[in-house]
């Protein structure tokens, strides 16, 4: 007997993992783009916040 996939019966279940991967990559791309475009002055400032006291 084979290990059956109980969810094969739900139509279009395969879309769930696809949606999630798609969302992650979009999100990741956005964050990466932002990070490289971010203002250098801001990054320097934020980086040094722990040392301001």
């Amino acid at each position, binding site marked *: 007997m084979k290990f059956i996939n*109980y969810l094969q019966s739900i139509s279009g279940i395969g879309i769930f*993992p696809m949606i999630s991967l798609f969302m992650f990559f979009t*999100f990741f791309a956005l*964050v990466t783009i932002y990070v490289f475009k971010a*203002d250098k002055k*801001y990054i320097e400032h934020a980086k*040094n916040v*722990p040392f301001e006291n």
Partner: protein
Amino acid sequence: MEIEKFQYDNKTVKWFAYATIIWGLVGMLGGLIIALQLVFPVLNFDTAYTTYGRVRPIHTNAVIFAFVGNGIFMGVYYSLQRLVKARMFSDLLSKIHFWGWQLIIVLAAASLALGKTTGKEYAELEWPIDILITLVWVVFGWNMFGTILRRRERHLYVAIWFYIATFVTVAMLHIVNSIEIPVTLFKSYSYYAGVQDALVQWWYGHNAVAFFLTTPYLGLMYYFIPKAANRPVYSYRLSIIHFWALIFLYIWAGPHHLLYTAVPDWAQSLGVVFSVMLIAPSWGGMINGLLTLRGAWDKVRDDVVLKFLVVAVTAYGMATFEGPMLSLKSVNAVAHFTDWIVAHVHVGALGWNGFLTFGILYYLIPKMFQTNLYSKKLANMHFWIGTLGILVYAIPMYWAGFMQSSMWKDFTEEGQLQWQFLDTVTRMMPFYAARALGGTLYLVGVIIMTYNLFKTVAIGKFLPNEDAEAMPLSENYTPHSKDHWHRWIERKPIQLLVVSLVVVAIGGIIEFVPTFLVKSNIPTIASVKPYTPLELEGRDIYIREGCYTCHSQMIRPFRSEVARYGEYSKAGEFVYDHPFQWGSKRTGPDLVRVGGKYPDSWHYNHFIEPTSMSPGSIMPTYTWLLDDDLDVSSLKAKIKAMQTLGVPYPDGFAEMAEASLRKQSQEIQANLKKDGIETSSEKEVIAMIAYLQRLGKDIKTVSVNNTK
């Protein structure tokens, strides 16, 4: 605008620091006791309160929620104030938070010792304590957000993002996983059953590791490594990617705890893919921490704080490399249910959480007491003995894990299993002994630290309120010319909270929607029937005694497991299991098909003295099950609760339950009598035997007809 003067609250930080140390000692001692119990079962003392199945949850809860929990609050209260240049929002809330959390810990320890447990790992506490946790957590969040809203530094440093994500996600996990139906003041049933319960539980369990043991400590790393090394973090850009990628990915990875189980394939695969991707942000974070020290390694040599922090971050890197590997199906097939997993979590717990906490304590206590550490030499000794302890703990456990797994899978040339399960148990003894030694070394290190810090406190003078000054935030902030959408989030804590919640909730929703659809889609197996009242009571004793800490109830579809235990487990078999009891560690054999394997008298004798039936067994004795009368006072309520949850007992069954229970008890009593055992039919052991004999019976009858 005028400079404002204010004071940082060190007193709450000090309290949390003391609590961290004390609960650390208690939790680790608990760990040492259970490690020794596996080598010398007499140390179970034949007493319910001190038996392995009850002490093990005390150990795990104590180190996670008491030791690390207080460690988080200590670090957050110290760093947050300084990062936002404001005193904690309310001294009263700080006080309620501190004492509320300690009250939870004490109640937790007492109730677990008394066997009040939901039977879901790392979420064992019963519903009144769950509610208390929610309230205290809200107080923490309120205090934290109050502080952030009064800040004098506009930009929220990355550490604070980690704190915020921790707060929202832990709240979400705790609430979703704790949905249960109360039966009595200290007894409830999980709302979910079987496969669903398992998915929710490991979504919670995995993310408790992620958002209780990891994200808050990463926040602390981003504050304390730069502070201790006196240089800013290597790459702030990397830390932003680290944060978002980590919180986004972590939430999906839960099903990797359930590979090869009766959980649907797509969920397993999703868990694997996201777990493997997790390497990237985890290592990004580790590299960021370590590279902060580039060109300052000479400092690391002299500074014991940095030494602890470096080993902590390295251990984090090791554990987060291993984790994704363990979620590959082929590796998981070997490691799951073995001591390999125990080694893995202890690299994280002892190395990452432990050492980071110690580093912070060595940094904070002298600072707040305005003095130097009492003895650098002792601190160095702690460092070396602790490191040695981790190695002596982990290496034998890895070895044991491999050995167990291969012994479980060995076949002779004739195609028979080579080893009895018992052989695989007795072979573990030298490794378990070495592990206990490693744990002892580690604990000795912590005792040395406690002495050292105690002395430091004695020579120092505590500064309860530390003076500080800063400019208030200007009312009308004009952003830099190139303002950006992400900065809109970073400046606004509430936005950050909402976005974090959305990010983590997406993962949860996508995982759960199909899970809830599943309920109507699991092929019900017609022969699977609800437990009888006596079996239900027996099952509750099984949960109370924490049998799941040593026994699994999940046969994976491997030749070796099917040969050893019988037909592999199907999702439809667990539809009435509130909560599921699949377990996560096979110190003893799987029990899901144990019904009918032995006569009732075997179990009876096995509970009196396991070694009499299985020489060399390390299972504790359970003689109180033979002495104590079964308490059926809440039977009616239990049946009704089960009916509410959809278990198809006939209408009015609650009223007839006790009669049914008495009848079945007498049958077992008569069975025992045939084998020369005289006992009253009202003892707990009767219910326990009824439950064990039921396990796997339903499916056994059908598989005879179904085999092709």
